[in-house]
């Protein structure tokens, strides 16, 4: 090949680079390893992490069983190694699955339209806030303190350089639910959005309808976010919200130390033009058959550039496909049964603990150890091969001494009994 270019060495291919830009040495990275050495190194790193027999840690990242079909499908090279489906004629596979994904997200959330995915739940929240600002022409965002603390931190980072003011409102110290009076006191004619999470960070189920009424009374939009998607199998969809965003990690996406996950963004039809991210639409091909393509792209950065709704480009397509396969495998009956198992297990566990809040809960519960600290309780659990809960004091100083525990279909009764014993109910 070099000869056909009239060159004698590969070095002549980049001889035109200014000398001072060339690295005059080899990169200081070990010589290449064989496949076995690589697999072995990562296996050893996996073993350097503690292996637990059971985990009660949730807080935005949940341990749910991953049906085998999920990896079978996403390992197909036709999905795994394809590009963003701009060339519709040779991307109908990806486009069809995204259309199905958008449909299922709408069915779950009670919204009219959903996009093809966001990076994750934490980045979907600020995108929803910005969207609400564009719709209302207002710049004040009210976010519940019971929204995932890291989601709120990402929102705060976004607010740094946008014309966005973020203010927080609290939760009832007994119920763990949004403090409606506290929210009402902060609502004003400047409020673009009220952002709540349900189930909230403490696992409690919010009253979406009442929150929507309150937000709408002041001309603000209600953004409902979720971190535990399995709850949607059993909980009323937040149809009264204007925008729903959230995290699909629970749908067969490995915890994987926090990513890659898949974010959701869905809204009422009338706000469609302000939604960020890719959308797949139905159309016809030249033979008149149903076909799908990316559509309404004029909202996006590659066309509108500095006036785009967002700079998002790459999203989480393959991870969204995992969630799509998960929703297909469980289906109408299975998602409900799965959610019911989670609820039943959490109620069993919660019934044996000193619960911190009175609000109805789904599969997470805040509880207080009878004696000792959260760290001590977790150390006792770790000694018995169990990963305990989150110390709420990490994010809520006023809740220090309390632990957030999660129960899913993967937690067995005898493990919950050990937790109850250690927590000393």
């Amino acid at each position: 090949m070099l000869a056909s270019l009239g060159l004698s060495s590969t070095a002549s291919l980049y001889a035109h680079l200014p000398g001072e830009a060339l690295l005059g040495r080899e990169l200081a990275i070990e010589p290449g390893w064989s496949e076995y050495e690589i697999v072995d190194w990562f296996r050893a790193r996996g073993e350097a992490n503690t292996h637990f027999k059971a985990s009660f840690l949730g807080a935005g990242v949940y341990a749910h069983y991953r049906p085998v079909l999920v990896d079978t499908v996403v390992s197909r090279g036709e999905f795994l190694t394809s590009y963003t489906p701009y060339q519709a004629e040779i991307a109908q596979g990806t486009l069809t699955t995204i259309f199905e994904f958008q449909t299922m997200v709408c069915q779950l959330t009670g919204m009219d339209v959903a996009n093809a995915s966001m990076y994750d739940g934490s980045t979907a929240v600020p995108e929803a806030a910005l969207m609400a600002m564009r719709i209302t022409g207002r710049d004040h965002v009210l976010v519940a303190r019971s929204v995932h603390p890291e989601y709120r931190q990402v929102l705060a980072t976004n607010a740094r350089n946008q014309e966005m003011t973020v203010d927080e409102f609290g939760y009832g110290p007994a119920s763990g639910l949004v403090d409606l009076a506290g929210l009402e006191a902060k609502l004003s004619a400047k409020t673009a959005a009220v952002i709540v999470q349900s189930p909230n960070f403490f696992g409690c189920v919010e009253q979406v309808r009442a929150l929507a009424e309150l937000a709408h009374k002041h001309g603000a939009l209600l953004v409902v976010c979720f971190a535990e998607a399995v709850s949607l199998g059993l909980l009323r969809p937040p149809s009264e919200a204007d925008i729903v965003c959230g995290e699909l990690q629970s749908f067969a996406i490995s915890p994987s130390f926090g990513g890659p996950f898949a974010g959701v963004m869905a809204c009422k039809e009338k706000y469609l033009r302000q939604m960020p991210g890719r959308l797949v639409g139905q159309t016809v091909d030249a033979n008149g058959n149903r076909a799908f393509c990316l559509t309404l792209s004029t909202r996006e950065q590659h066309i509108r550039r500095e006036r785009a709704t967002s700079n998002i480009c790459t999203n989480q397509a393959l991870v969204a496909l995992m969630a799509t396969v998960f929703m297909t495998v469980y289906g109408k009956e299975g998602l409900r049964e799965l959610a019911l198992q989670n609820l039943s297990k959490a109620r069993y566990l919660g019934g044996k603990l000193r619960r911190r809040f009175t609000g109805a809960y789904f599969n997470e519960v805040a509880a207080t150890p009878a004696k000792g600290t959260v760290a001590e309780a977790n150390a006792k659990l770790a000694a018995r091969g169990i990963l305990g809960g989150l110390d709420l004091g990490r994010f809520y100083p006023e809740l220090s001494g309390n632990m957030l525990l999660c129960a899913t279909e993967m937690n067995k009764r005898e493990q919950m009994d050990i937790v109850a014993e250690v927590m000393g109910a």
Partner: protein
Amino acid sequence: MAYPENLRYTKEHEWVLVEGDTGTIGITDHAQSELGDIVYVDLPSAGTKIAQGASLGSVESVKAVSDIFAPVTGEVTAVNEALTSNPEKLNQEPHGGGWLVKVKLGAPDELSKLMSAAEYQAYIGG
């Protein structure tokens, strides 16, 4: 397509038809042809004040967005709702049924800055 004599034209390819103190605004046949199939039109609501030369909205094809610049100053009195469900009207009848907004003229003397049909045709031909 012919460029009607009774319209006044801008360099940004909008037109205005003046009847009394009302101006009807649209984009030219040349503009719609350059844009290709128009899929969406974003227009101001009635009551919005617009200023000559400033953006009053946008038209979109599948892969492009173009601002519409107001040919005259005034206040929007009517919006062509038909374009919401049938944006293709802009391609089909740019100088008639594809009108965008009607405005109550705010500064009639601005009209002298606009081109006649003959001037516009020379402008796009050149």
